[in-house]
């Protein structure tokens, strides 16, 4: 019974990683940049929802919507101000700018909300589910997280597969120049990608802080790195890959904490990543691109 309990908890935390990883992977696939500020958008989202419920006293749903709205705007603003002028420059230049943005967000959050941790009240209010005579406890957060991630996954697959904007996104990620020649506005598409990624980050922030209730300016950075790892694990640029990578990472983390060694979970997770990349250098579901001479 214990093993199922760990599995469910692992899938739950993995789903949060997966939602964050989706943001990383979409931005990477389309703009070919590692957006290291993505983790900090999560933190901003969590703070916004915290403020809306605690200071304005508005209902939880409103706070989540507010967080999503603010993060979407923030993501698009960052893209327009910091990343767009650097389009076409070496990826390292954009990477360093993203790091600058990440520092900026963390320190701005520290100025606004101070560095002392806030106690985030979970957005989920219903009672945990007790199965098998109380041996298996599934908390409301776990259920909500898993359902949310499934909905997002299905929604994104539909969006990128069926809608015009989604198709444009895939076209830009495949071949930017050809897409431009076909009349797709690359700038608009990249901007939309940032908007979607940031909105997802806001949801991830709310879910993350509902599970782990301490909220501080550095809350987003470690889950951000984990989710980035997950995106690479699944094959960066691939949406199902991000989902698979995230859940796998969460399960590995929970199991290694439970059965192997609690303090070495980091080393185990990253060790698994290295091993998988050595066997499959483009990640689990990534496309191996043949080099042309």
């Amino acid at each position, binding site marked *: 019974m214990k093993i199922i309990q760990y599995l469910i908890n692992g899938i739950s935390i993995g789903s949060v990683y997966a939602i964050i990883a989706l943001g990383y992977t979409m931005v990477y696939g389309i703009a070919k940049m590692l957006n290291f500020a993505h983790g900090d958008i999560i933190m901003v989202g969590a703070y916004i929802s915290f403020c809306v419920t605690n200071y304005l006293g508005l209902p939880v749903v409103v706070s989540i919507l507010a967080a999503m709205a603010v993060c979407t705007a923030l993501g698009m603003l960052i893209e327009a101000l910091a990343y767009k002028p650097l389009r076409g420059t070496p990826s*390292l230049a954009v990477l360093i700018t993203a*790091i600058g943005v990440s520092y900026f967000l963390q320190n701005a959050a520290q100025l606004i909300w101070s560095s002392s941790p806030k106690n985030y009240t979970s957005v989920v209010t219903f009672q945990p589910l007790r199965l098998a005579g109380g041996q298996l406890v599934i908390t409301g957060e776990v259920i909500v997280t898993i359902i949310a991630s499934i909905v997002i996954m299905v929604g994104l697959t539909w969006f990128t597969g069926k809608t015009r904007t989604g198709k444009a996104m895939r076209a830009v990620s495949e071949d930017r120049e050809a897409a431009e020649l076909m009349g797709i506005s690359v700038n608009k598409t990249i901007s939309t990608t940032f908007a979607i990624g940031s909105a997802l980050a806001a949801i991830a922030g709310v879910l993350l802080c509902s599970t782990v209730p301490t909220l501080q300016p550095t809350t987003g950075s470690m889950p951000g*790195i984990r989710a980035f790892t997950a995106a690479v694990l699944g094959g960066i640029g691939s949406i199902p890959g991000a989902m698979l990578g995230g859940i796998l990472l969460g399960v590995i983390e929970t199991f290694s904490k439970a059965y192997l060694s609690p303090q070495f979970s980091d080393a185990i997770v990253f060790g698994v990543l290295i091993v998988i990349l050595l066997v499959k*250098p483009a990640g689990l579901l990534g496309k191996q691109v043949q080099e042309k001479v």
Partner: protein
Amino acid sequence: MKKLNRNQVKNASTYILVTAAFLILQVLSTQGKLNSTTKGFLVPACAYIVLAVSLNLLVGICGELSLGHAGFMGIGAFTGIVVTSLLAEAVPNGVLRLVMGMIAGGVLAGVVGFLIGIPVLRLRGDYLAIVTLAFGEIMKNVFGNLYLGVDETGLHATLKTEGLTLAEGGKMIISGPRGATGITKLSTFAIGFVLILFTLFVVQNLINSREGRAIKAVRDNRIAAESVGINVTAFRMKAFVVSAFLAGMAGALYAMNYGSITASKFNFNTSINILVFVVLGGMGNILGSIISATVLYILPEAMRGLQDYRMILYAVVLILVMLFTWSPKMKDIISVVTDKVRGVFRKNEKEAAFHE
């Protein structure tokens, strides 16, 4: 006298600048013109310069993005601490002991670099970057849980949470999450300076040698380099190991400047900071790395007066510098301005020529 070529002039000027800066600071320091805070910056600044130059070898010259340089720094730091405290009685001379610690740290970092390089260097680009990130995190995790102590029966180490029980009179050197404590501060500015010179000597000679040209060829066009018979993996490995070795030495220098140090110092943020030094200084530009490491290390420290605003300012400066130096639009504007300035000079020259 043989005429020096451009590279030799550039190299010589780097040595001269570094030496001049060292002499000025040393004179100021002996005359008591530097306050204790500034003096405290000197050794870490040296360590960061070495780290930046060594990472530049990897990122700028070899073209491989590494996000785990702090991992090698950590290996060097903890090895250096262990070696110097073990040799405390055998080698009473502090300088000699530190040098031995630094060499041991560098060698171990180099060996680890070689071992992880074998599988890892098969990857390329962003995948290599993420694996180095993973390596750095693993190292931090391992050092954060390492207990190492010495007593009369010898050296003991464990990774278990309950720690170590040493015999009577034993001494803990590294105690898990609390890190290494009771380090004898052996690092001095002069040794830091010598390490910088050594690093410059190694890196600049490597860059301008046959090997260095091969490494650059691999960076610029791997397939072309391979087709003219360059062993790509061997040269990438060489750059990787040399870079790790130097980072290990810098780590030992850095650690021996403090009374205690924890593994969390060698985290992702430190790796990123070193990368920022390299990119802002200019990829492949050694003197640029030295200058930017110095300026960017001192900048946040010098802005302490601004308290909470200093890191936010640092972030803004970072973003603006990247935008100004890389953005194509900005480049256009800058080139228009420089053309105008140049035009004025040219006019003057023409007029001068006319008057003659």
